């Protein structure tokens, strides 16, 4: 689980097209360093979500090389990719919480799927839920949570397994500016504890609140501002 030699993720001349259409992502070459913090921005339709899906290994590039934790992702089996995916936490724009499970069970899901018993993680999950301000909603189910509470539950689920990389897709898109600021502080704290963070957003105000590296997608190309 140590830091990878060349970074958490390395993209080399990566291109992506859907079907026979033109390339929507072209010649992407960049890396995400261990313990780094970056915003991923760009106009709507620039390919932010596609890039996040490439980063999260749910899309395969049409060309180029993606190295994740020093592994060439093209040569990995589905099970090996699943194991690598456990080192990445994702916060989806639409939260993707399971409505039939309690907040506790949603957050504990990444630990449960690796075979851990509830006794071994109960305290960890309860503590994290308290930290994100959901201690009182531990046994509530997502349908009764507000947008901001769902967002925090989704973030808690993404970080419960102490991932080395956290990807967040528009994490402040559904919350008021005050909560957005709180969530940003949460990401900064996570980053300080050693997690690399990539936040996809086009919220300029959010990016202005923290001086971090910016990856800007435009016309399918990526521009890196360190």
């Amino acid at each position, binding site marked *: 689980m140590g830091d990878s030699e060349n970074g958490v993720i390395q993209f080399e001349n990566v291109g992506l097209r859907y079907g026979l259409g033109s390339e929507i992502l072209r010649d992407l070459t960049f890396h995400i360093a261990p313990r780094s913090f970056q915003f991923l921005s760009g106009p709507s339709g620039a390919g932010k979500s596609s890039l996040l899906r490439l980063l*999260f*290994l*749910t*899309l*395969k590039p049409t060309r180029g090389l993606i190295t994740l934790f020093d592994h060439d992702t093209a040569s990995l089996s*589905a*099970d090996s*990719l*699943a*194991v690598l*995916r*456990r080192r990445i936490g*994702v916060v*989806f724009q639409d939260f*993707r*919480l*399971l409505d*039939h*499970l*309690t907040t506790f*069970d949603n957050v504990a*899901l*990444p630990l*449960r*799927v*690796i075979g851990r018993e*509830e*006794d071994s993680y*109960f*305290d960890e999950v*309860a503590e994290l839920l308290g930290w994100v301000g959901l201690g009182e909603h*531990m*046994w509530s189910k997502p349908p009764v949570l507000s947008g901001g509470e769902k967002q925090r539950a989704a973030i808690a*689920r993404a970080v419960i*397994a102490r991932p080395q990389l956290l990807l967040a897709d528009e994490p402040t898109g559904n919350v008021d500016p005050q909560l957005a600021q709180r969530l940003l502080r949460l990401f900064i704290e996570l980053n300080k504890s050693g997690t690399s963070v990539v936040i996809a957003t086009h919220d300029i105000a959010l990016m202005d609140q923290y001086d971090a590296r910016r990856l800007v997608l435009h016309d399918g190309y990526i521009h890196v501002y360190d």
Partner: protein
Amino acid sequence: MTSRITAALRKSFARLRRRPARPGRETRGDVHIVPKDSIAANALAAVVAIMTFLAAVTSGGVAMVIGSANEWQSEVAREMTIQVRPTPGRDIEAEISRAQALARSAPGVAEVRPYSRQESDRLLEPWLGSGLVLDDLPVPRMIAVRIARGAVVDTAALRQSLAQSVAGASLDDHRSGINRMRGMAKAAIAGGMGVFALVLAATVLSVTFATRGAMASNRPIVEVLHFVGAKEAYIASQFQRHFLGLGLKGGALGGIAAMLCLMLAGRVSDMFIGTAGEADAAALLGRFSMGFTSYVVLAAEVGLIAGVTALTSRQVVIHTLRNIE
């Protein structure tokens, strides 16, 4: 050593005391990754129950028809008839006794029963009407020969010895009737098996499609499990176990309902025993009863349908995961 165990126990109890309890009576074991009582799951269980019921009733009916067809064949094949025609100058009763003795001495014959003059006359009543005096007519006399179960009688030898020793005697082993009956029985068995195969195919197809329908609503769960790093085998096993349970639940309901129906039909048919209609129906269709084989077939059907449900869910999970990637 003991102190270490005591310390560990104390630590565990302390942790349990600190821990907020799950609400209501829910325990960790009640938390299912795949929702247990969704509308889609209940609908699927209902489809499985109905299809299992139909398949089980069909298999019960087909087993009955096959049993009856086999029974017809063996019953008819175990009967032979000796006909003794009156011959001028010969005492027919003496000829009948000789024919009876010859038949009795043939290996494989279980029972020989000559028809009396009155019984032979009664055989003509459907054609000649009742109340006629047939004493002056040369009415042939019949001897019913019953073959022992599983035995084979050398009919050629018996026919030859009858021809040599009994005047006016002939042996009818119902060969042409048996062949026709065998053809009918085979057709009934083939028809029954065909109907059963069709019902089973329809069951498998409808259960497959119902499972796919139920799985469609579970796609978000498959995706989330995939995104949090669950392996394909883990996700597939969660759904396979859940759907196997649903299949077994629905199958057991349908199977028990079918069993009760067949038993009820058996009881109802027993109530009519002794009536003419019941005798005809029993001769043609057999009796409503569930033997050991029927129970085995029923259990196999439930197992097959539950297996189809589980495997379909597994297939859908794998297909969904391939699509995500």
